[in-house]
C-alpha cells in the first residue's frame, strides 16, 4: 500500500512540476524575440551544419532550441580563418535579423574524451542588438586526454549579457548619511533654550548656590 501511495504522490508531483515548467516555457515563448541566431557546427571538414537556434528574448534572456538533422541547413562562404584552424572547434552564429556571422572557436582538445560536452554562448547586447558573442565548450582538463574522435553531443546554454549603465555619484544619498556613524541622518528637532545650554547653566547655578555660603562661613570663622 505504501509503495502505491508513494508512486501516486510522485506521479502527482511530477505532473505538477512539469505543468509549471511547461507554463514557464509557454510564457517565455510568448515573449517577443529581438533576434534569432542560427547555430552552425563544424561537423565535417569545411562544412557547417545548422544544429540549433538561439532566440534572444526581450526580457534579456535567450532560449536555445535544437534543430533536427533532417531540417538543418548548411552554411557556405564562412571565412577561411574559421575553417583553417585545426586546433580549434569552430561554431558559427548567424543573425536572422542582420545576417551578421560570428565565427566562434574553442580549443579542440577541450572536447577530448567526452560524449556530452557543455557549451555556452554568451551574447553581449546593447540597445541596438547583439554586438558580440563569446563561446566556450568542454573543459581545459580534457586537453590531457586522448584525441577527439567523433563530434560529441552538446548540452547548450545561452546567456545574455546586457551592457549596463555605468554608475554615477549618488549625490542625493550623501546628505542622508552621517559620515562619523554611518547611520542615516534624521533631522534633529529644534531644542529649547534649557536643553541647549544646560551645561553652562548648571555649574553656574551650583556655583552661586554653594560657593557664596562657604566664603561667608570662612569669613565668620576668621572673625
Amino acid at each position: 500500500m505504501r509503495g502505491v501511495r508513494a508512486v501516486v504522490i510522485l506521479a502527482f508531483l511530477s505532473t505538477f512540476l512539469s505543468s509549471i515548467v511547461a507554463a514557464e516555457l509557454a510564457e517565455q515563448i510568448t515573449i517577443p524575440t529581438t533576434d534569432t541566431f542560427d547555430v552552425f557546427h563544424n561537423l565535417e571538414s569545411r562544412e557547417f551544419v545548422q544544429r540549433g537556434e538561439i532566440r534572444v528574448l526581450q526580457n534579456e534572456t535567450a532560449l536555445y532550441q535544437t534543430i533536427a538533422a533532417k531540417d538543418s541547413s548548411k552554411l557556405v562562404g564562412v571565412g577561411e580563418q574559421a575553417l583553417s584552424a585545426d586546433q580549434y572547434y569552430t561554431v558559427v552564429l548567424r543573425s536572422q535579423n542582420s545576417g551578421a556571422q560570428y565565427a566562434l572557436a574553442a580549443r579542440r582538445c577541450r572536447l577530448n574524451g567526452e560524449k556530452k560536452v557543455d557549451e555556452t554562448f554568451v551574447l553581449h547586447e546593447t540597445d541596438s542588438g547583439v554586438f558580440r558573442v563569446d563561446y566556450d565548450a568542454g573543459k581545459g582538463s580534457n586537453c590531457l586526454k586522448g584525441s577527439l574522435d567523433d563530434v560529441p553531443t552538446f548540452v547548450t546554454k545561452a546567456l545574455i549579457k546586457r551592457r549596463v549603465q555605468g554608475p554615477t555619484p549618488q549625490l542625493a544619498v550623501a546628505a542622508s548619511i552621517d559620515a562619523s556613524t554611518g547611520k542615516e541622518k534624521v533631522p534633529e528637532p529644534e531644542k529649547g533654550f534649557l536643553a541647549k545650554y544646560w551645561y553652562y547653566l548648571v555649574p553656574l547655578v551650583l556655583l552661586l548656590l554653594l560657593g557664596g555660603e562657604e566664603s561667608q562661613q570662612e569669613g565668620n570663622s576668621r572673625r
Partner: protein
Amino acid sequence: MLGGHSLTRAALAAVLAASSFSTAVQGLFPDEAGRIDWYRAQIGVPKSIVAHTQEDRTTNILAITDRNVLASLKPDSGEIAWRQIFDPTERINALKVRGSLALTHSGGSEAHVRVWDAQSGALAWGFSQPPSPSYKANSGAAEFLRKSQDVLAVVGDSLVRLSPNPSKPVWELALNGTASYKRLVVQESVAFVIGDAVRTKRQPKPRLHVIEVSLKTGLVKQQYDVGTEQALGRSSNVVVESNEYGGYIVWRDDKNIVWNVHRLGMQEPMWDIYHAKLVQSELMPVDMLTSTLGELDADPGLIADKPRFTLTYTKDTKVKTIVIEMTHAKDKLELRKVVGFRSDSAIVAGSGGATLPSSGASQTERAVVAVRTSGDISWRTYANSKTPTHSGEFAYDTATYGPVTAATLYYAGSEPRVLIQTSGGLVAALAPGSNAPVWFRDESLAHATDMTFLELPAPASSAEHAAKATDPSILASPMSRYVLRWVETAKSLAAWPASGFGLFGGASSDAEPGSSSQSTLEALVPTTPLTEGDHFGFRKLSIFGTSTGVVAALSSQSGARSWTHYLADNGTAVAIDRVFISRRSQPLANTASLLTVVGRTGHGNAVVATLDALTGELLGDIHVLPFKKVKAFELPTTESATEQQLLGLATTGSEPRLAIWPATADAAKAFCALPEPVFFDLGASSGSSQLRGYRAECPAEAELDAWKESSAFSTSRSWTFDLPKGEVLLAASEYRGAQTTALLGRVLGDRSVLYKYINPHLVTLASRRDAGGIGIYFVDRVSGRLLYSAVHETASASDKQPFLATQSENRVIYQFWQESGSVEGAQPRSKGYVTVVAEMFESDKPDTRDESKAFSSFDLSLPHVITTAFMAPEPATALGVTRTGSQITTRDVLFGLSSGKLLSLPDQMFDPRRPKKAPTKDEQAEGLMPYMPSLPLDPKRVLSHGNVVFGIAHIKSAPTHLESTSLVASYGLDLFFTHTSPSGTFDQLSPSFSKVNLVVTTLALVIGCLLGGPMVRRKLTNQAWA
C-alpha cells in the same frame, strides 16, 4: 655562578643588539616632508630662446619649449625665475620680447595672444580669437609695434591690431584664407604679412604671398605674390628685417644659382646677388645649387640696424658658413660678408639685440657666436671682423646629452655668455675662459616616456669587500658571510664610543653626488655612479627613457644623476619608447644588471640597445631592426647563455610578426620551449575600432638555429574584438609589471569570503561613441572574451579632459568628464569629473569560487562586477596605485592633479561595496565606510605637500624592503619622488623612539640583575637553612 655567566652573556647580547640598531632607522620618519622626497621643476627642451638685455642692463632669458612652457631663466644660475604652462592643446607658436614685455602667440584656429611682464611672469593682457572656419593650417604670428605697446597678430583668419587690455581689436582685417600667414614684418606706418599662398588651379605652384597693411587704418595697401616655388621655413629663402633697413625676402629659385633679394613693399627693383660676390671665391655650379640660407637672430625685430643672415655652401667637400650683412650705399643695396667659418660641425647664431655693456645703452652688440659641435665644445664670438672677441672651451662627451644643436649669446653684467642646447635636452651656459658650464639644466627628463626602478645591491660590509678582493670563495658559504657580518658589527661597536655613542651626527648625510637641487652645484657628468643601495630598498636607480634619445639614471632617494647616455642613429636621436631591466645582478655574483632600451629611429624603425644598468655603458652596438611600429613587452623566459629576459617585439600591420630580443638562436629556442604559446594583442591605439589577438607560431628547429636580428615568428590571429558600430577606441589600459596579491578574497562581516576575480590578462578599453558617451569594455587578451561592458552616456573625453584608467588586482579605476543629464532607467548625471571603481569577484555569492585550481583564460568564467562612482575633487592627469613587497599593506590610489598636486587616497575609500544606506551589522563589522559621493581633497593626503608638480603624466610605484612602505614616482613635466606608508609605518620605529633610552634601560636592567642576583641567591640560601 652559572646564573651570573648567563646574565653577563645576556647583557652583552643586549648591548650588541642595541648597537646593531644604531644605523638602521635613518630617514624613516613619516613626517619628513622635504627630506624623504625630492622635486625638480622643469620646462622642457627649448624650441626658441630669446635673451634680451634691457637698457637697465638686466638680462632676461625667455624660452618657449616643446612641452608648451613659457619660462624665464635666471641668467646667473639657470634657475626658473617663473614659468607659465600652457594647455597641451594650445601650442605656443611664437615668442617676442620688447623691453619689459614678452609676447606669445598660441593655438591654431582658436588663437590666443598674450602679453606678459617679463620680470614677474604676470599676464599683462590677452586676447583670444574664436575658431574660424576659413583658418589655414599653421597660420599665426604676432609682433609688437614700434615705439608702442600695441601688438599686431595673425589670429585665426584675421589680422588684428591690439592695444593693451583689449575688449576688441583696434581694427581687424579678414585675410579670407588666401594663405597660411606665418610672418609679420612691422615698420613705422605699415606692416607686411607674409605667408604660403593657397595653391589654386591657375597657380598650382607654391609661392609667397605678401600683404602690405596700413597700421593706422588696417586697410590693405597692396598685396602680391613673390618667390615662385618658395615656402616659408625652407632653406632656400629667408626673411630678414631691421628697424632702419626695413624687411627683405631673399631666396634662390630652384635649379638657379642666383640669389634674389626683394624689399618688401616694392615691386621693383629686385636685386640679383651672385655667390662669387658674397663668398669672395669662385664656386662650381653644383656647389651653388646646394647652398642654403638661414636666419641668424632668434628675434630679428630686435635688430636696430643692418639686417643679417647666414649662407652655407660646400666647396671642395668642406662646408662653410658666412654671415652676411645688408648695407645701403646711396640707393644701392650691398651685401657684405662679415665673417666666415668652417661649419662641418659647428653652428652659428646671432646675439639678438643685446646692449653692448662697454659702450653704453645707445649701441647694440652685433656679435655672432660660432660653436663647434664635434668633440669638446669650443666657441668664439665675432663682432665686425674676423678676429674673435671672446672664446671658450670645455670638455664635453656627446655620448651624455648629444651634439649641440642651438646657441644663443647673451650678457650677464658685462660678461658674454653662450647658451648652448643639445639634441638630448641639455641647456648650458658657458663663460669665456671657463672649462665647465656656469650652469646647466637637464631638460631631457621633461620628455620622459618610460621609467623603471632598478634594485641596487645592498651595501656590502668592508669585510665582505675585502674578502671579495682576496678570496671570493669565502662569500659562497652563508656561514662565512654570517661570521664576516659579526666581525663588521664588532668593528663598528668598537668605533661606537669614538662616535659619541651615536648622539652626535647620528643623521648620516646622503653622500650621493650632486644631491643639491641647484643645478649650479651639480657636476655635468656625474663622477661616481650610484652602485650600492641601502638596507631598506629606499635607494634604487630610477632609469628614464626619453623621446630626446637620453637614457638617464637617477637616485630614487635624492634625485642625483648617476649616469646619462645619449642614443642616436646616424646623428638623429633615437626616440625611446620603453626601458626594461632585462637582467638583475645577483648578490655577490659578477653579473651586471642589464637595461634594454626599445625606441624608434627618425624613419620609424625599431631600435634596441643594451646598457649596463649600473654604469650606463652601452654594451655592443645600437641595433636598428627591420621592423616598424613595434609593441614591446616582456616574455616569461630568459636566454640561457646570458640569463637575459626575453622581450617580444610585435610588429603591427596586416600580417603581424613577433620578433624577440636578444635575437639569438638560444633565445628563439627558449621562446619555443615555453609550455604555453605566447598571446598578444594589437590595435589598442586611439581611433581604432578593432582589437586583435594573436599567438606566435614556432618554426622548424633549423630555422631557430639560424635565428638572426631580422628573424621573427609568424603569428596567427586567435580572436578579434570589434567595438559596437559607431564607436572608436579612446584609450586602453593594462597591468604594468608583476602583480602581487596577499588576499584571494574579501572577508565579509559574517566571516564568509567573497573571492576576487584576478585575471592577469585583463585589458580595459574605453571607446568614444558617435551617439555621445563613453563605452567601457573589460577584455581578456588571451581569449578575446568580453568580461564586462558598461556605458556612460553623458561622459566625454578630449585632450583637455582625457580618459584615465589604472588597474590593480581585481580593481579597475577610471576617470572621465561627465555632463549633467538624465539617462533612461538610471540616476540623473551630474556635471563634473567622475571617478569610477569596478571591482571584480568570482561570484556574487560569498564562499563561492571557480572550481578549477588554476586560472585559465580559456575557461568561461565571467566576473561579478561591483561598481560605484565618486565626484573627483579636481581633474586628474594621471592615475596610479602604490605597491609593496607582499601587498599585505593596503594600496593607496594616487592621483596626479592638474593643479600640480600628487594626491594619495586610501584604498577603503574606493571600495564599491561602501553602503549607500545605513550600514548593516555585517557591514559595520567589515569596517566598510559609508558612501560619500565625492572624494576628499585632504591637504594631509597630498604627498607633494608644498611642491607644485606640473604635468604629471605617469605615476609609478615600487616596493621597498619594508612591507609598510612603497616608493612613489611621478613624472611628465616635473619630477617628484617620495615614499608613502598607506597602512602606517607598522614595521618601523616611531620618530620619538629613543635609542639612548633603550641602551640606558638595558644597561640599568643588566646592572640591576648583577647587583640583585647575589642578594637573591643569599636570601634563598638563608631560607634553605632556616
